[in-house]
């Protein structure tokens, strides 16, 4: 883990690192990764990953509308919206 890697993952995460604090962040992340490197001690040959303790298939339900249309409520509570849409800065010039 070096500064360049940290800059890359920060960009992938859409997070800007505080200038002047990059060394501390890099050192912290490096320590955490070193700490989790203990996992190398485990013998996991042939072990299926466990993604969820229930190991059940996600339950599905019939595809029918159960909720009322609350478009106005949701748009009202958005940071920026008009009567029909969430608004973001122009994407296509």
């Amino acid at each position, binding site marked *: 883990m070096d500064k360049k890697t940290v800059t890359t993952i920060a960009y992938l995460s859409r997070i800007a690192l505080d200038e002047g604090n990059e060394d501390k962040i890099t050192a912290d992340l490096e320590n*955490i990764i070193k700490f*989790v490197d203990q996992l190398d001690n485990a013998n996991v040959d042939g072990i299926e990953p466990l993604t969820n303790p229930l190991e059940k298939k996600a339950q599905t339900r019939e595809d029918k509308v159960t909720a009322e249309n609350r478009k106005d409520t949701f748009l009202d509570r958005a*940071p920026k919206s008009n009567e029909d849409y969430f608004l973001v800065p*122009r994407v296509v010039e």
Partner: protein
Amino acid sequence: MSIQYKSIKNLTSMLQNKEISYKELINETFTLIESKMDLNAFITLNKDMAIEKATLLDSKKNDSLLAGIPIAQKDLFCTKDLRTTCGSNMLSSFIPPYSATVISNLENAGCISVGKTNMDEFAMGSSNETSFYGNVENPWGKNLVPGGSSGGSASAVSSGIVPAATGTDTGGSIRQPASLCGITGLKPTYGRISRWGMIAFASSLDQAGPMARTAEDCAILLNEMCSHDNKDTTSLNEHIPDFTKDIDQPIKGMKIGIVKEFDLSQLDNEVVKVFEESKKHYESLGAEFIEISLPNISLSVPTYYVVAPAECSSNLSRFDGVKFGKRCDDPKNLEDLYIRTRSEGFGDEVKRRILIGSYVLSAGFYDAYYKKAQQVRRLIKNDFDEAFLKVDVLMSPTTRGPAFEAGSKGSDPIQMYLEDLFTIPANLAGLPALSIPNGFVDNKPIGLQLIGNFLEENKLLKFAHNFQKTTDFHLKTPSGENI
């Protein structure tokens, strides 16, 4: 008559015997809240709605055990039309248009939500020091942390403001603060309580649960909190028993496992002494002890710090400043909007975990970290499966020690991560676990953890209630008197 430190059972009987009206109870609760603002246990209060509901209850007959009972809700649960911040600047003005299923369940049972409790930001922390809304005080001592992430809930119950609060537990966030604040807290089996409307941190680990003064009160709350919910695909569709039913049954002849790999020699002597006393106490109640080996358990914390950040980095990608929550001022373009909103909205610990998550999920490292952690997670679960063929419950200290001072863990995140050494394994395996007060170290409370097999909350509650019937640790209060 003061309502401070009263249990749910006490308050229910006071209400039913008309010693106090519903409205008086809620008014008294707000008097207590306002007299203890220095704890910083609440982020948002729900006073007008609470009084309105209490007034309504006064005008009709109520049979529900929980009717009119004041409850504090962790600020991680969406509450319809009541600000929900998750301890973050990102959601400082978020007003949910719906309530979490568990909140609706409790409110439908008659509980009155009096406010939203402070917490570590997005539940990432073990001391409540990562909250955007400031530290929470542990009522047991000035400048002591209440634990985290459900620190505000624990502080509110411990100080006797409310008899009950909700919490969530991803790696110990109910049990660790319960231990540090001298109260009882239960993390149910993964899937018992719907996660719908809970702001997600790590979806395969997150589980809501009750925090209260006694195991009996936790059982009463759990009866209402559990439900099968079509809106949560991991909600269990299993029989939900009456958790209060067998709580009084004796535990004679039942078996308690002591985990060989939990190295207690690393702990303070006083902490070990308290634990040994509890063992003796359970022996006097007729329980038998068996040493159990969980060979992979020492890898729990490293496993957790891959799985939880991975899931967090994915879950928290929804905070982009578009549909709800904070948005930065004057974004130059869409990317600037995303980056500045997230950089301004999240605190340091949350950013750290998102970065770790993005790293362990990135193409070159996925197998080495994420897949491997999930494989070790299965080994840990297998160890537990094996153990529960031999014992009814497993027992350990909940925490490595009592409450510590704010700021005392320094700036090394791993020191804080190790706070959850004893609690994380139950989350990885999806097992129910609880913490009950079992003694004091330096006049600060400390807790005992019991871990149960899948769906065996009733057994855990029975063990806890038997302990509480014959000890008084849970009856001690920070202000000195016994209740």
